[in-house]
């Protein structure tokens, strides 16, 4: 076991980690947008749209992320949409994360009792005020743990983008392996880097959660 040959590849490792973070943040933001739009559509009155969103959720939650990435990268060019590896992975991961986000956000909105909204309307608050002051804060607090743990799973899941040669961390591992033949050492180091990133995010989210959701819980 010899980790020394890896030392000179630290810049590649850092670059890979940055691409991984970019991929994660892009997919998370796009996925959350999809999640909000989907949750609104699911609670809306247009039945075909509801079916469409349901179909989307079930399709993306019940097939492997790896196959989704392959389809975006290898199949979409048949329809004239040729995306580079990073973009293809970003699209596939956004759609995957979005499918989970819809359910999480909808569950968060549904967790607020209806009579609280009615109470707000009785007090003469406008639709926006009800949303902003009565619906949103508890819905955010209830959805927060699920969103953050899904975010960490997304961070780990971006490793699949290496399979279409997006130059994120896991792909960098393959590159270093091909140069040094130190297979085990490379992947051990990569695991540690992912672990460090995942734990940092968990700690960050815990602190943000404590700071942002301090008001007392209803008992």
């Amino acid at each position, binding site marked *: 076991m010899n980790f020394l040959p890896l030392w000179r590849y630290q810049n590649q490792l850092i670059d890979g980690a940055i691409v991984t973070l970019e991929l994660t943040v892009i997919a998370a933001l796009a996925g959350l947008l999809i999640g909000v739009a989907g949750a609104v559509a699911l609670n809306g009155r247009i039945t075909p749209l509801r079916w469409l969103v349901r179909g989307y959720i079930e399709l993306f*939650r019940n097939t492997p992320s790896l*196959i989704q990435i392959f*389809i975006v990268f290898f199949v979409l060019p048949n329809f004239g949409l040729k995306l580079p590896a990073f973009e293809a992975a970003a699209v596939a991961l956004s759609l995957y994360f979005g499918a989970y986000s819809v359910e999480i956000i909808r569950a968060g909105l549904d967790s607020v009792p209806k009579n609280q909204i009615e109470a707000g309307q009785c007090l003469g608050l406008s639709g926006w005020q009800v949303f902003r002051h009565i619906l949103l804060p508890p819905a955010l607090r209830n959805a927060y743990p699920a969103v953050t743990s899904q975010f960490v799973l997304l961070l780990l899941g971006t490793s699949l983008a290496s399979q279409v040669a997006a130059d994120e961390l896991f792909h960098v591992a393959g590159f270093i392996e091909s140069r040094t033949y130190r*297979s085990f050492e490379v992947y051990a180091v990569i*695991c540690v880097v992912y672990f460090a990133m995942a734990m940092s995010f968990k700690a960050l989210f815990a602190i943000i959660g404590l700071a942002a959701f301090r008001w007392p819980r209803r008992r």
Partner: protein
Amino acid sequence: MRSFSLIDFVSLFAALRWTVALVVLALAFGAPLALAFATGRISRFAGLRWTMAACIQIVQSVPLLGLLFFFYFGMPMFLGIQVPALVAVTVAYTLYTAAFLGEIWRGGLEAVKQAQWEAGSCLGLSAWQQFRHIIAPQALRLSLPPTVGFLVQLIKGTSLASILGFVELARAGQVVSAATFQPLLTYALVAAIYFALCLPLTLWSRSLEARLDGSR
């Protein structure tokens, strides 16, 4: 180049047996370990609790892909002998399953009220009897929906074994796609097979959860 024919169709379904085999192996070894994790996490001994928590935290904070590569290249190194890919892959999936199921089951165990243990001990039951006859049945009922949900994760997760060259469904899809130059048809079919495996489980998990909700 040849066109997509019946033989390709058959080879995809033939590869499906390895996907199923991986799931079965992961559950066969992972479930007992998960039980050990879950009970260790609620143990009276702080040292044991911390160790188990650390193990789970590590496995859950590393990509499944990383876990697979770690054991694929690491096992021969630790053991000093060449091990078949299936063994290394099984070890990785076992740990993955144990970490996630362990946390799910711990949640189930902790959701059973403390008074239930106390009531058991008032009846003169031993700690094991309390666990076996009072706590475990209730915890099982509570944790069944997320357990079935995790099964879906696991089935999808077996697709990563393809990256180590293991010929299960996803890998067979790559092979067929490369041979026929029909990625659209092939990957749509592969996705459809995964979907057909996972959707019933998802729906089952949801109906279990709904039933649980009504009974409380």
